[in-house]
């Protein structure tokens, strides 16, 4: 017996997914799970979900990705975005997840000001990980 799994935006009817696609401007169903984004991600070793796994869970409409640490480890370096063979701007998907979490009041990252860092680093970090 062959089990067939069909997933599509329509069959899922997940408003959460729709929000991610709107905010990121990306079609998450374009991703065919080749893993190139994760292979080249220099911060993947610190992530709980690899970039391609984030995409896969989104394709399944799994809202659990909002609790993942991966988007907060992403440095928005855009390496994945320029390399994806399907033209998925993965960094924008990561940003959409950060934004959605922040807008729901979830922010797992604490910005500690106890280290001397240059202004550009601080402004950059605040803009990415605080509301």
């Amino acid at each position: 017996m062959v089990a067939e799994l069909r997933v599509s935006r329509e069959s899922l009817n997940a408003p959460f997914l729709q929000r991610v696609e709107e905010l990121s401007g990306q079609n998450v169903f374009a991703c065919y799970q080749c893993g190139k984004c994760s292979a080249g991600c220099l911060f993947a070793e610190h992530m709980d979900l690899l970039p391609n796994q984030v995409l896969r869970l989104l394709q399944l409409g799994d809202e659990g990705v909002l609790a993942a640490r991966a988007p907060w480890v992403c440095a928005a370096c855009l390496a994945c975005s320029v390399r994806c063979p399907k033209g998925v701007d993965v960094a924008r998907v990561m940003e959409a997840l950060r934004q959605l979490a922040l807008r729901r009041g979830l922010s797992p990252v604490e910005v500690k000001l106890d280290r001397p860092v240059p202004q550009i680093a601080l402004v950059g970090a605040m803009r990415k990980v605080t509301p």
Partner: protein
Amino acid sequence: MTNGSIQHSSPITHHPSRVLYFPGCALKDQARAYEEATLAALAALGYEVQELPRWNCCGTVYALAQDDLMRHVGPVRNLIRAQEQGAKELLTLCAMCYNTLSRSALFVQNPENLRRLNAFMDEEEDYRGEVRVLHLVQLLGEIGRGRLEKAAKEGLSGLRVGAYYGCTLLRPQEVAVDHPEQPKILEEALAALGAEPVVFPERVECCGAYLTVTKPEAVRLRVSSILLSAAQAGAELLVTACPLCHFNLTERRPLGAPKLPVVYLGEALAWALGVKSMPEAVAKAVGVRG
């Protein structure tokens, strides 16, 4: 897009010429040496550089969310200031400023985005979408190998210099100063200035950027890996155009990592042209391999 020199060959600069310059916060603070050296070098190359009046922060990181119109206000306001000066180009030295400004400039190439943004800002004249954001390395490309070779003294002669591009000069592709994976624009400039450019595997890989605030241990790993990559390829000196890369590559350098000095593109330029001399600490470190 395969050849930097062809891609950037359109003449935008006439000599002797006036250039309008956007400094950004870092160039007035931690990266003052970059500004000082670049201004001296550009003067020696015949440029009259004018600082953009009433500039404001570029935003440092580009907002990737589709509904974040607000975050374009700062960058576009700077473009309006440039427009007020009648400038067609705005020169940046900081790679992050280059990135945010040029991406916002691109964002408002879409007429609907431009209309919405203009409607949003009522204290300024409308932006017409005509200012080109230019990075120092592109300007050097336009000055051209011949002129740079002629102007160069012995400052970098024979030095094996690694160009560290990092992210913001190369990604996303729409604003890349050269091919995003195989760039050579920095190497070409360094070669014209008398250095021996060293191509190393990690030259386009991220240093960790602002994770230096939230996850410094991840940045240390990156920095170590980048420095090793450069040292193993034989680089004696690293050149960068990004103040955040510079901070990470120096201040987040783990003990035991290769010791090669990291300097700004403008500094290397000024040393090559003989308008500034290499600080003793750098001169001493050069030649000492990690």
